[in-house]
């Protein structure tokens, strides 16, 4: 049996400690040990972005982070985007603009788009497209996703 190690971290603002194998990814920990299945595994190699989470404020592919690396770090997942029963403007606009069809890439897009708008509140269409190029969607052709992010940006700038 492999050696389990103990990791203390903050997930969506709450202190969380967990035990994991040394070679276990943060994605495996979130999904299989903590029951946070909102983050999806689409490829396991950092090519699709469905597992996007924030690590100390930067968006990463949680399939390319070891659970052990999370020690002392702050993690943000799709489960933490809404506050209570109030949707984040991005979530609301994704629904309003029909920016999802199957919805499996949506959590990754929301996490990545939120990080994008926090760094760049007024992105051009091109900045949105390149900023979200690490998130694959096979259903929508991206059109409605880009429009939803643009609309959310306007909403968020209004504050």
């Amino acid at each position, binding site marked *: 049996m492999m050696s389990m190690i103990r990791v203390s971290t903050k997930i969506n603002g709450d202190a969380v400690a967990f035990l994991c194998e*040394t070679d276990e990814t943060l994605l495996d920990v979130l999904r299989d040990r903590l029951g946070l299945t909102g983050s999806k595994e689409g490829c396991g*190699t*950092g090519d699709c972005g469905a597992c996007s989470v924030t690590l100390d404020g930067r968006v990463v592919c949680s*399939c390319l982070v070891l659970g052990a690396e999370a020690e002392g770090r702050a993690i943000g997942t799709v489960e933490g985007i809404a506050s209570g029963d109030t949707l984040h403007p991005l979530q609301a606009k994704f629904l309003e603009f029909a920016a999802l069809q199957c919805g499996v890439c949506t959590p990754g897009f929301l996490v990545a788009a939120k*990080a994008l708008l926090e760094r760049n509140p007024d992105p051009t269409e091109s900045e949105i497209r390149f900023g979200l190029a*690490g*998130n694959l969607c096979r259903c929508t052709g991206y059109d409605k996703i880009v429009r939803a992010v643009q609309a959310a940006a306007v909403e968020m700038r209004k504050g």
Partner: protein
Amino acid sequence: MRYEAPTTISAAVKLLAGKAGLARVLAGGTDLLVQMRTDRIAPDLIVDVKRIPSLGAITAKAGAFRIGAAVPGAALGENKALRRAWPGVVEAANLIGSTQIQSRATLAGNLCNASPAADSVPALVASGATAVVAGPKGRRTVPVEAIAVGPGKTSLKKGELVEAILLPKRQPRSGDAYLRFIPRSEMDIAVVGAGVNLTLDRKGVCIAARVALGAVAERVILVPEAAAALIGTPVDAAALDRLAEAASAACRPIDDKRGTREFRVKVAGVLARRAVAIALQRARGK
């Protein structure tokens, strides 16, 4: 598998030098974790170097830069001074993967992964960058082109790791640039990459140049013949033609899923020419 996150270089070196079987350095992990996941490598020990403070810092002294081995691409892009001095290097580093990858991937990792297609390496080679290597016998500084010896193979000895990348002071009337060719607009591995750094005299004649190519040989190659085509010229059309020819002539690529041999040879010349045009603008201060 053992996971360690030392807080000093000496501790990291001790771990890597220990009899731990296969040991690997973990910086951004964007290559290492993929190799583990796809069963290409099964390390016995992983040394996470991100807890070593000096490895996470970019420091500037007298115009030269020291970039810690754990600094992610995103942080390079956020450093205005570095971007102003070495736009080609920063752009090359920022081309690696997605925003998500940029939050993790490092210059040192890109260098030590020793992929012939590594985006930041041709730019680093062209810039004349050096790597600070820490090991059981102390520190040594080597040109970055001396690190990779073949696909996935480096000249690092057991117990050694790259601690930092050093970029020289930006010379007056000089500029650098990196361009790569990929089929998509993002998310691909370079099919061809071209890095250029050149310096002009007051009359606009090229007095120094370095041209490096990626993905056209078993490792990133420095192409002196291509540089020679520029040196002593005003970098005019004729010089650019000779540069493109020299660049293509230096290629010894493979045929694979990413491109044919013919394609790589031709596009190497095209990219070298286009990269020089950008570097030239920068050298002219435009």
